[in-house]
């Protein structure tokens, strides 16, 4: 009986994961094909001869606000589920004016659905954590990105080659179907929320989150830039662009998804960097014909696929160390939208100074190089901070004797004083300098000085490195 019960539970978990991925993929396909600079929206605006930039900008800004703010409104799993369903409903209503002639309802609809779409996406952070095991989150993220992009390509092809209205109907169908899948998911897994509250002890999530946002912003600023610089050059290849645009992106995601878990992520990051630079260089050297487009787009979108899954997987990891997965997921993705906006603005600025195509590409390439140089150190810091959280969580679950053993096993250049041992214990329990100062009734600058001495004695440069070294030591033993 227990085995049968376990099997049933496992089946339920798998079903929930599939439903969650399918529901979100459909929602995301709606966003990509319509709301977020989608071809359906562009086709509708072109069909009615409406100037598009203000509408598109309004939708993106509203989407950013929705992603960023949703986590502050959601306080429980039930709220996350209903926020997602409610937001998808609002998107549905706000999209209907596009079946009619342009009016103020279009702008209002885009702003409202932009905001609601942001909230719906952020809310999925809860489902990602609840229904996907930690080591499988990269696969779930890859799945939603792959499926949503495949659906988006299908909708785009219809909107461009058949009719924008049919494209709009398909987008809305995605939204409705996505709502049905999310509706079928259970909401009442409160223990996941309480687990997160427990994890709050293992250090502050603000610093890694801030670093992650910077990382995502730097990565996606290049996407925004390339939209503005490269896309207009191949506008005349409408048919090819409509279906091939996201194909390299999907292939890159599929390759990344199936990489062994042991694969070094930093190396993949370097491959992505090389590809995006290659894209800009080939853009400068090649012509503007279909084969040239295939080369440039393959390199560029392939790199985007690598980068996107890279930071999505980091967000997935971070969900374990947060009080509120909706907040972390939403804020992480909002950095992506901000990056697209920043890159877009940069692209507009570069292209508006009326330089030749080659000069524009050189400037864009320089910007890309500068931003990409920032990625490896940011990645190192981020990995270090995430390792800290992983270690502190494991350390906290150990018995007092095991904790002492780990510290003893670490070789120091010089023995720690009693006071330094006390400070070290508090550092390893995830306390900040200020908290340690309060606990030991000493000043914060005293704690900092002791910490500096401890780092020196362990021959490490920072708290993150100390914890990381302890983690390595623990895994060796």
């Amino acid at each position: 009986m227990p085995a049968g019960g376990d099997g049933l539970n496992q089946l339920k978990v798998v079903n929930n994961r599939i439903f969650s991925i399918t529901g979100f993929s459909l929602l995301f396909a709606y966003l990509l094909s319509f709301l977020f600079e989608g071809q359906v929206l562009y086709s509708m605006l072109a069909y009615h001869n409406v100037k598009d930039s203000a509408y598109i900008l309004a939708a993106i800004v509203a989407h950013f606000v929705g992603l960023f703010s949703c986590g502050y409104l959601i306080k429980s799993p039930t709220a996350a589920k209903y926020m997602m369903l409610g937001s998808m409903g609002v998107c549905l209503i706000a999209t209907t004016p596009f079946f009619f002639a342009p009016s103020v309802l279009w702008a209002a609809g885009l702003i409202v659905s932009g905001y609601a779409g942001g909230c719906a996406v952020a809310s999925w952070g809860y489902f990602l954590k609840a229904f996907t095991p930690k080591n499988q989150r990269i696969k779930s993220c890859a799945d939603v990105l792959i499926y949503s992009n495949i659906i988006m390509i299908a909708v785009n092809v219809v909107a461009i080659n058949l009719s924008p209205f049919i494209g709009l109907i398909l987008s809305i169908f995605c939204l409705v179907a996505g709502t049905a899948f999310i509706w079928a998911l259970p909401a009442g897994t409160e223990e996941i929320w309480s687990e997160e509250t427990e994890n709050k002890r293992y250090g502050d999530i603000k610093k890694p989150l801030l670093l992650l946002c910077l990382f995502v912003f730097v990565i996606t600023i290049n996407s925004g830039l390339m939209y503005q610089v490269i896309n207009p050059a191949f506008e005349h290849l409408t048919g090819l662009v409509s279906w091939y645009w996201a194909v390299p992106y999907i292939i890159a995601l599929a390759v990344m998804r199936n990489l062994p878990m042991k694969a070094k992520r930093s190396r993949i990051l370097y491959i992505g960097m090389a590809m995006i630079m290659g894209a800009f260089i080939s853009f400068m050297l090649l012509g503007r014909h279909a084969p040239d487009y295939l080369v440039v787009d393959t390199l560029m979108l392939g790199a985007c696929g690598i980068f996107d899954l890279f930071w999505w997987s980091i967000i997935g990891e971070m969900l374990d160390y947060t009080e509120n997965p909706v907040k972390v997921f939403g804020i992480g993705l909002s950095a992506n939208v901000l990056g697209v906006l920043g890159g877009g603005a940069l692209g507009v600025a570069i292209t508006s100074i009326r330089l030749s195509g080659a000069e524009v590409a050189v400037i864009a390439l320089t910007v890309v190089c500068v931003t990409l140089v920032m990625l490896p150190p940011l990645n190192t810091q981020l990995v270090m901070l995430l390792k800290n959280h992983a270690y502190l969580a494991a350390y906290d679950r150990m018995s007092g004797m095991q904790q002492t053993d780990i510290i003893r096993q670490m070789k120091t250049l010089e023995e720690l004083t009693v006071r330094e041992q006390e400070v070290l214990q508090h550092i390893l329990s995830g306390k900040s300098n200020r908290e340690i100062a309060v606990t030991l009734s000493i000043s914060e600058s005293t704690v900092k000085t002791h910490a500096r001495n401890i780092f020196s004695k362990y021959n490490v440069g920072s708290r993150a490195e100390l914890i990381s070294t302890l983690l390595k030591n623990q895994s060796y033993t």
Partner: protein
Amino acid sequence: MKAIRKRRNCFTVLFVAGIVLATWATVKPMVATASVFGAASIASLMLLIKQSRLFYDASLICDNSILAVPSAVISMPGDKEQMNKKEVVVSSFGIMIGSKIYKWGRTGVDGVRLNTVDIDRTRIYLTFGDGTETMRIELMHGMADEQAVMDVKERLWRETGVTAIISGW
């Protein structure tokens, strides 16, 4: 400590005044005067930074005080002894004699370290250095109670890892 704070405040005032006057001279415009005040501002800024660091060190020493005595005898190997009548604070991270600071235990294994501590009936002898230079300071500790001496020994060991050698008690 008070003297250091006073000096730091003086340099803050000088720096702000220099900036204001340099701005005023630039607006007038009096290029030569602006340059003089500008240079004075930079100089006072540098002194301000130095005093702020000194003040930080002094605060750290006072926050972690182990022993406060009214006078000290300072001796370096090969030099003559100097008597100092200013207030002296011995702490986990150094010693402050008036507004002069000797630091130790601040930069881990490579920096200046407290090496030995000897306590007799009247004096406490502290030796510290970084391997290339060693300094010895004698203080009149003024402790008459054995328990107070043992407390100082305990605190020194706990905070710095140095075991004080007690003689004559």
